[in-house]
């Protein structure tokens, strides 16, 4: 049975604005994100990408405007949607216990827990490391566990905030492979990055942000072939944006 009808999408963002300490960080953003493919939020540092993603998970509140998952305001405790940080914090427990913790938070019954944990460990290649302390994993392994921890709940939507920013090229490739695999299993992916190459490799559609404003929201093919704005053109050319 295909559950696509139950996806809490589209994500509707209307006139979304956030300011902190007198600085406008998101400036009246309007967008509708549909259920198909990987959506990449692209832009230079400080564009407001992470903030937008945090609002989408209910971690921050907008000052004005709204963000709704199919008419529904997000709360972080909803298990159909998970969030992956750039720098994960793990509990001082084993890899397995870190996964188990998330399932306990969401009151998953024990038999199902074991099944989900084994699945997540296999998908992310962490089976052999399951008994090891999460805190002593390498950077690449930590990020795989970070993804596993978000995947273990079998979410309908996964939000990832610069998940490969701290990794070496092979680490980046591994995580990208995982992200594609997750997307293929009907989990909607929305992820931020400042890497053009990564956006090219993964994106179905692109939201290009600059200084808190949504400059364009176009299919990735269009974005890279015929950018609609001069800012996007400059960003693609590697120029400094002002």
């Amino acid at each position: 049975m295909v559950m696509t009808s139950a996806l809490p999408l589209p994500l509707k963002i209307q006139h979304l604005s956030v300011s902190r300490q007198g600085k406008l960080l998101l400036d009246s953003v309007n967008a509708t994100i549909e259920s198909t493919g990987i959506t990449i939020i692209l832009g230079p540092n400080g564009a407001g990408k992470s903030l937008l993603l945090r609002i989408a998970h209910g971690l921050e509140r907008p000052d004005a405007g709204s963000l709704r998952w199919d008419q529904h305001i997000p709360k972080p405790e909803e298990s159909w949607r998970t969030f992956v940080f750039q720098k994960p914090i793990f509990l001082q427990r084993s890899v397995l216990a870190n996964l188990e913790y998330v399932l306990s938070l969401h009151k998953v019954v024990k038999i199902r827990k074991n099944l989900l944990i084994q699945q997540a460990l296999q998908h992310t290649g962490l089976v052999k490391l399951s008994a090891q302390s999460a805190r002593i994993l390498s950077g690449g392994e930590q990020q795989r566990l970070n993804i596993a921890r978000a995947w273990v709940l079998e979410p309908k939507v996964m939000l990832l905030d610069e998940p490969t920013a701290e990794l070496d090229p092979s680490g980046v490739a591994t995580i990208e492979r995982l992200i594609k695999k997750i997307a293929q299993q009907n989990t909607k992916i929305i992820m931020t990055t400042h890497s053009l190459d990564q956006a090219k490799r993964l994106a179905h559609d692109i939201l290009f942000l600059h200084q808190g404003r949504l400059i364009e929201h176009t299919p990735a093919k269009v974005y890279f072939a015929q950018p609609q704005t001069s800012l996007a053109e400059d960003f693609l050319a590697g120029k400094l944006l002002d």
Partner: protein
Amino acid sequence: MNDFSQAFLKAIQLILNLDPNLIEIVALSLRVSLTAVLIASLIGLPLGAALALYKFFGRGLLVAILNTFMGLPPVVVGLVVYLILSRSGPLGALGLLFTPTAMVIAQVCLITPIIAALTRQTILDANNEFHAQLRALGAKSLSMMNTLLWETRYSLVTNVFAGFGRAIAEVGAVLIVGGNINHNTRVMTTSIALETSKGNIELALALGMILITLSLIVTSAVMSARHAAYNVYS
């Protein structure tokens, strides 16, 4: 120096002879202080965590009071507990004055603020590290508090033993509410005070040495347990 060497010999002698009076006193000291630490921890750990994590009216004042009470003079605590437990006091009918229970109560009053204030700081630091991550994983406030208490368990053990150190070493409160009654409420610190005032410096010093050694043993046992556990997962 002569006093010290003689006291040292005396201490060894007391221990080797398993002096029944000594054993009774040591046992009561440990019983009273460990019970007090247990009760103070049951109150102080959740209280400290709640003060770190929940915002409510009067929290600032409560924190200020707690921090002040960390340095409460034991004699004052003893006096207040004495007044409450004395025959004409509000809890006089319970007949607890001059019993080990009264001593436990006084020590609980003394060390709960210490454990709570230290716990608050520990949890506050851990919360800075974990809050966003745990929130994103879906933890609500109660499971957040439980997780932080568990994650900081090694530091919390240290906090609890700061409380134990204070309890086992204080004399003012237990002296006032216990009365230093032989075979009944006499503990190490009160006997040291008594023997000193009687002029038995040697015995007093010997007891002092045993007290310090005892604290050392308890503390290092806990520390090595903590160390062993800590090495497993971090």
